[in-house]
Each structure stands twice: as structure tokens, then as C-alpha cells.
């Protein structure tokens, strides 16, 4: 009975289902969205493309009522609307599927779907389950309404989230990186369903940074770059390299010193490592590379492509298959780090200065002062049963002086310091141990320009001292200006290693967004050559 409705797309006189006009949103001094305008019609899929931090999710959260814009207007079906809460969004039939699922684990699919709804009439889960089944059949989902969330795979959970917004009658669907957690087969299935929804007249906005998905799925692409709206193009009239160019923006020249590597020798050889998470999904696929002494090896990639797992594997915090060979400069021996504990690895001189999103999470203890935090690395050195505080204290004072850490004293708890100073303490401590391999993940995240340059200089100093530096970064301009070589990781595979002196931003950007199947083929070929 719905067939007729489905086959004839609803074209409401070409008025956009939703239109954003000149949206600006600031968080403090950071401009997340700067004068962004875009629109999507019924029966159309719009991709919003951009790198991490380009403001895609913020923009979508504005439509979904989670944030309220500082400037600009939102129009639904041509009428200006004010969306102040997710409830308002639902009233205008806007539904958003977030990247991080909001589901109650011990509830069934149906219970999650009806959660928060104040329907008329008697509450009946059986009736709700029936409607869930109807929606599933209409669009071709495969879902058991009575299955508990904790028994579900990631893709099933996503299905629940999508049905949740459809159940509420959403006409405009926003999906925030829906394919990030899916296998290629699941992604294909999802796209089939999304196309079916489009054909039945729904307006769909999908956030992604995977170019091949954009090209295969959407009708139009809106590109954001660093919060700014770059433009909208018809998918049929564009291609990967044009989109990459729009996405990465113009090259910004940074004034970072870069010396030529001095007699580089192989320090760390990673051979064919593979890492799985608890669900069995591969987070790293057959990764092989070599880090050399006196060289900064940059690692570029979309966040969550396996960078964290790779560094953790080298530091002994992550179980992997494959080989991690360390060429010891003192003894000349070659050790496999894979079976060693983090302590043994550290004693060999491999240092990890890992900065996760929560800076104080893995590196430092927020409530302890600088001296105590330095002692976390050296507490085993004392000879008596009592702690030996004299050397750590002088080291703390040296770090404070050399790196210009702004702190009242060495006894201030580190959580009271600003982000840049916390970072200086962390990097300072790791460098003080005279490492042979230094790994820094996002060491300048959240730091201002001056603090960033202090960190770059520190890394450069280490490089000149013959340390093999591995630098995971997100800003391509920085990676291109600081590193000697850049290794690009995409969906857990190495999609290419380029010379940072000659590579262009577009080149790296293309490698970052490379389809995982291509990337895998590339890695396999590389492995064959070696």
C-alpha cells in the first residue's frame, strides 16, 4: 500500500526540506562554524565532508537542537524555525543518529525505541514491537525487536538508533559518521537502505570523511574546512581529487626548522602487525614500517584509524600479532618488543609520550605535583625503602626552567596547570630519560602557538640527538613542515609513506581518505616488494 508513495518521490515544489543560512557558532574563542549555509531537499542525500575539527558535527548538532547557533537561521520546508532542544527538532521531524549510540544496554530494541515517548493511549510494548517490525520491513532493516542491546553487534545497535528516529516520524535524517563502525558489507547494506529512504521522499544528511562513500551515495556534497563553508557541489560533477582539494584547503607555510637527518639507521622495525578489539574487528591490519634514528616519522590519518593502537602496541600496552623489532644502539642486538612488558620496553629506551584526548588520563596523575609525577618514572631507582626525592626534584626544577613551565612551584598539582604546561611536564619527563625512540601522539592538541612551537623544538632537538621520533599529528601543515617522512594510516592499514619535503597536502589527504580495501591492497603490495 505504501508502494505508490515510495515510487513517487515527494517533491514539495523544490523547497528545501531544511536550509541553514549563515550559521555561526563559537565555543569560547574557537569558531566551530563560521557563516555556514547549506540546504537539502526531500528525496535527496547530502554529504557533509570535512576533516576532523572542521565543524561538521557541531553543525549537525545545531540542527538536532543540541547546540544553539550564535548567528544564522534555520528553515524547515521554507519556514524559519527555532530549534532549542532535541524535542523541538523532533517536532520539526528532524532525527539525528549520533556517532556514539545512546542506548540502554539491558533494554530490548523496542524498549529503547519507545524510551521517552509520551504517546497517547495505553502503554503496550507488543504494539510498539509490531510497529518496529513494520518499519523494518518497509525499509529492509534486519532487526529482532525483542533482542537485548547487549547481545547486539555494532551494526544492529545502529539499526536501533535509525529506527528510533523513524519511529518518531523523522522526515529529515542526520547520520553522524554512520560507517565509521561498520564493515564494508554492513556499509553497503546501510547505503541500500538509505537510498530506499531517499526514494520514499526523506531528506538525508550524512557526515563522513570517506570520499568513496560520498561519491557512491550522495546527490550533493557540502564541504567544510576548519569551520568555514567551502561550497556545495553536485556529486555527479566532481571527483576525489577535486573534493580533497576543497577539504584540505590551501597550504599554510609554517616556520618550523627542519634539519636533514644525520646518518639515519633503522631503530624500530614493525613487521606485519595486526590488532583486533574484543569484538574481533581489526583495528590494525598488516602494518609494517621502519622508524629511523635522527628522523621524525609523522603519522597522519583520520582520528581513530588505529594510531592509538599502533603506539600502544609498540609500548607494550596492546596485544598484537606480528613482530616489533628494536635495534638496540648500545648492544647492537635486535629484540622483539612484542613479548615484553611495558617496563622492560621502557628500560630499553623506548619512550611513549602519549597524549590521549584526556591529557591527564594516561600520562600524568592530576592530583600529584610535578615532582611526584616525575617520580612515577623513577621510583624504582632508589636504594633504600624510602622514596628518594632529591634527584626528581632537581629534574622537576630543570624542566620548569628549561621549558618555561608556568607554575607557582614544583609542588603544584599538575591538574592546576594549563594544558600547554601539563604537556611540557609530560614531554620533559619523557625526554629526560634520554630515550632512543620517542613517541608523541597529538602532543600539541589544545596548545597555543607558542607552546606548540616549544614542543616542536623539543622534538627537533631529540631528532638531532639521534632519537627516532614518531609523531602522530592531525594538522597536515604541521606534519608537512616538521616531519621527514609521513606515514598515512587509513582504517588500520598503511595507505602510503611519503617524503614530507616533497609531498603535497592533497596527496596526504587523498591517502587519508582512501578506501580501506584499496589501502589493504596497497599494503599487501608494499609487503611483497620488501
Amino acid at each position: 500500500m505504501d508502494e505508490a508513495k515510495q515510487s513517487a518521490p515527494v517533491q514539495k515544489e523544490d523547497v528545501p526540506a531544511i536550509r541553514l543560512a549563515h550559521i555561526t557558532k563559537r565555543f569560547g574563542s574557537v569558531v566551530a562554524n563560521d557563516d555556514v549555509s547549506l540546504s537539502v531537499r526531500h528525496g535527496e542525500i547530502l554529504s557533509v565532508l570535512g576533516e576532523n575539527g572542521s565543524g561538521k558535527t557541531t553543525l549537525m548538532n545545531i540542527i538536532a537542537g543540541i547546540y544553539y547557533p550564535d548567528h544564522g537561521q534555520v528553515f524547515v520546508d521554507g519556514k524559519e524555525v527555532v530549534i532549542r532542544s532535541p524535542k523541538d527538532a523532533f517536532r520539526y521531524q528532524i532525527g539525528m543518529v549520533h556517532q556514539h549510540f545512546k542506548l540502554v544496554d539491558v533494554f530490548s530494541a523496542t524498549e529503547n525505541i519507545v524510551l521517552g515517548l509520551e504517546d497517547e493511549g495505553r502503554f503496550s510494548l507488543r504494539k510498539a514491537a509490531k510497529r518496529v517490525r513494520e518499519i523494518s520491513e518497509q525499509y529492509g532493516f534486519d532487526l529482532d525487536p525483542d533482542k537485548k542491546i547487549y547481545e547486539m553487534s555494532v551494526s544492529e545497535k545502529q539499526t536501533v538508533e535509525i529506527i528510533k528516529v523513524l519511529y518518531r516520524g523523522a522526515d529529515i535524517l542526520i547520520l553522524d559518521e554512520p560507517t565509521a563502525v561498520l564493515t564494508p558489507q554492513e556499509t553497503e547494506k546501510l547505503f541500500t537502505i538509505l537510498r530506499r529512504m531517499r526514494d520514499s521522499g526523506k531528506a538525508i544528511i550524512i557526515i563522513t570523511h570517506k570520499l568513496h562513500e560520498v561519491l557512491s551515495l550522495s546527490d550533493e556534497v557540502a564541504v567544510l574546512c576548519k569551520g568555514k563553508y567551502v561550497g556545495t557541489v553536485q556529486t555527479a560533477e566532481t571527483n576525489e581529487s577535486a573534493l580533497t582539494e576543497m577539504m584540505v584547503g590551501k597550504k599554510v607555510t609554517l616556520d618550523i626548522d627542519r634539519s636533514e637527518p644525520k646518518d639515519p639507521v633503522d631503530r624500530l622495525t614493525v613487521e606485519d602487525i595486526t590488532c583486533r578489539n574484543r569484538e574481533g574487528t581489526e583495528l590494525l591490519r598488516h602494518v609494517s614500517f621502519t622508524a629511523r634514528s635522527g628522523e621524525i616519522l609523522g603519522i597522519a590519518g583520520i582520528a581513530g584509524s588505529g594510531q592509538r593502537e599502533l603506539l600502544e602496541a609498540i609500548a607494550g600496552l596492546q596485544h598484537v600479532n606480528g613482530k616489533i623489532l628494536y635495534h638496540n644502539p648500545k648492544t647492537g642486538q635486535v629484540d622483539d618488543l612484542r613479548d615484553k612488558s611495558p617496563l622492560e620496553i621502557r628500560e630499553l629506551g623506548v619512550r611513549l609520550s602519549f597524549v590521549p584526548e584526556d591529557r591527564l588520563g594516561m600520562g600524568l596523575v592530576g592530583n600529584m605535583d610535578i615532582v611526584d609525577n616525575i617520580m612515577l618514572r623513577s621510583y624504582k631507582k632508589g636504594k633504600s625503602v624510602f622514596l628518594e626525592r632529591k634527584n626528581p626534584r632537581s629534574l622537576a626544577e630543570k624542566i620548569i626552567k628549561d621549558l618555561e613551565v608556568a607554575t607557582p612551584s614544583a609542588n603544584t598539582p599538575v591538574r592546576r596547570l594549563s594544558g600547554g604546561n601539563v604537556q611540557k611536564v609530560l614531554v620533559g619527563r619523557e625526554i629526560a630519560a634520554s630515550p632512543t625512540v620517542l613517541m608523541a601522539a597529538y602532543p600539541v592538541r589544545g596548545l597555543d602557538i607558542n607552546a606548540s612551537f616549544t614542543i616542536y623544538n623539543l622534538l627537533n632537538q631529540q631528532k638531532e640527538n639521534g632519537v627516532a621520533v614518531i609523531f602522530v599529528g592531525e594538522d597536515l601543515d604541521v606534519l608537512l613542515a616538521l616531519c621527514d617522512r609521513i606515514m598515512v594510516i587509513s582504517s588500520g592499514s598503511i595507505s602510503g609513506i611519503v617524503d614530507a619535503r616533497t609531498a603535497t597536502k592533497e596527496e596526504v589527504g587523498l591517502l587519508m581518505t582512501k578506501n580501506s580495501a584499496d589501502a589493504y591492497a596497497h599494503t599487501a603490495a608494499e609487503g611483497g616488494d620488501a
Partner: protein
Amino acid sequence: MMLAGFLQRAIMQGIPLLYGSTGEILTEKSGHLNLGIPGIMYMGGIGGVIGAFLYEQNAAALNPVLAVLIPLVCSMLGSLLMGLIYCFLTVTLRANQNVTGLALTTFGVGFGNFFGGSLAKLTGSDIPSINLTATSSYFRTSLPFANDLGWFGQIFLSHSFLAYAAVIIALASSFILSHTRVGLHLRAVGENPATADAAGINVGKYKYFATCIGSVIAGLGGLYYVMDYANGVWSNDGFGDRGWLAIALVIFAVWRPNISILGSILFGGLYIVHNYIRDLDVSGQELFKMLPYVVTILFLIVISIRSKREAQPPSHLGLPYFREER
């Protein structure tokens, strides 16, 4: 007929536990571990005692309806007040739930003993105990034909209205939790408040209502203990550790009030079984009194090994909820 007598006493012993555990289950379903339950049950008890005492002292002749209604309302007000204090501290101010709960237990027990002693002093008695037999007799009114029906009447029909109310409240709570929209929302709040919030559920409101209603229900257990079980005699510390047993019963009932009904009778029976075993010395009695706790610990081990998700406490139990802000 000894078995029938034992079961009748076991049920009477179990009713305060049933009230306490039903109240605590509702509270915990909202994600709040209220360790103030023992204090709240004391408060419910002493509230009823104060109401009944003042009415008995000031009224010339007792009106049966008022004699029941006044203590009932006073008891509910006392435990509601405790619930509100707990909510204000843990929901609004996000204080540590364990510390707040333990403080309320200490406070409730002290409050009960203080006023229990004061009222006793007003009557001129030397021992800290108050006799409210007249009020108690109204509370203990049971079906007139219960004793004519042999063992069946003795076990099932000889109880007072508060005992049946406990069972009805427990069954109603079970139904609300699993079959209504309000119950679904409440469980969501205790499992994952961020999700509930995103779904448009007023998390704070649900927490306040569940905790306060839970407190009032638990307080009725204190009232039942004084008026029915103890025949209207309040003695300081007489309520003992029943409040803690009620919290243990929550675990035993795997957060389901209907299972709690049977559990409370079992716990009640285990609690008094030492009286029915001949030739037990004092130390032996104490060992037997331990049984409900031993059963709870064994049960905890069993459900932990089976690790069925439905038998676990609400996953956000004991944690404060902060709305994510950017």
C-alpha cells in the same frame, strides 16, 4: 501446628523487610544507592510513635480511624523528610551517595532513640520504652474469621492491613517497573541517565520521586514493626539491624519487588529460626541470626558467577549524573 505458627511469625518478621526492600528497589532503580534505609525505617517507626503518643495523651477517647491515620501520616512525613534530605544532597548537590546514606542512618537511629527516650521520660517511666497498646490494637485488627480457618487462616489471613498493603505495594511496584511507561523511564534513568536525558526524560524529577516514594514505603516498615510486630511497644534499638537486612534482600530479590515478597518471608524465617530450635545457647542463637546474611553472600557469589545481565544492579547505581556540557 508449630509449623503454622513459625510461618505466621516468619511473615510478620518479613513484612518490615519487604517494605524496606521495595522502597530500596525503587530508589536503586533510579540509580541511587540509599544506605540511609535503616535510618529511614527508624524514622518511620518513631514518627508513628510520636503521632500515636500525642494522640493517646491528648484525646479523651480514641477514634479508631484517627488512631490509625495520625500515626500513619506522621510516619510517612518522617520518612519523606529523610528522603528529601537524601535527594537534595545526592541529586541536587551530587554528594557521595554512600556517605550521605550512612550519615542518614546514623541520624535516623539517633533521632529515634532520642525521641523514644524523651517520650518515655514524659510518661515518667525509668526504662526507655513507650507502650502504645491502644493504638496498636487498632493497627493489628485482622479479619474476624481468620482464626476459624485453621492453619490456612493462621498463616495467610491473621495479619493486619499493613502486612497486606506491603504485598500489594510490592506487586504494584513490580508491575509499574516492568509494564508501564513510567517504569521504563525510571529504569532507563538508573541504567543510563545520559540516554534517558537525551530521550527527553526529566532525570532529576524521576530520581527525586523514586527516592522519596521509596523512602516513604521503607518508613512504613518501621511503623509496621512498632505497631504490629512489637504490639505498640517502642524500645530503643528494638528495630535492630532489620534495615540492613532489607538492603541485603534487594540483592537477593535481584531488584524485583515480586521476588522480594518470597524473599522477605525466607529472610524472616531465617531471622527467627533460632527460637524454634531447642537447647540453643546465646552464641548459637547469634550464629543462626547470621543466616540471612550468609544466604545473601552465597547468592551474590552465584549471580556473579552466572553474570546474567538482568540480575545485575542498575549500571549507573551509586554514580552521580552530570549532564554533558561543552
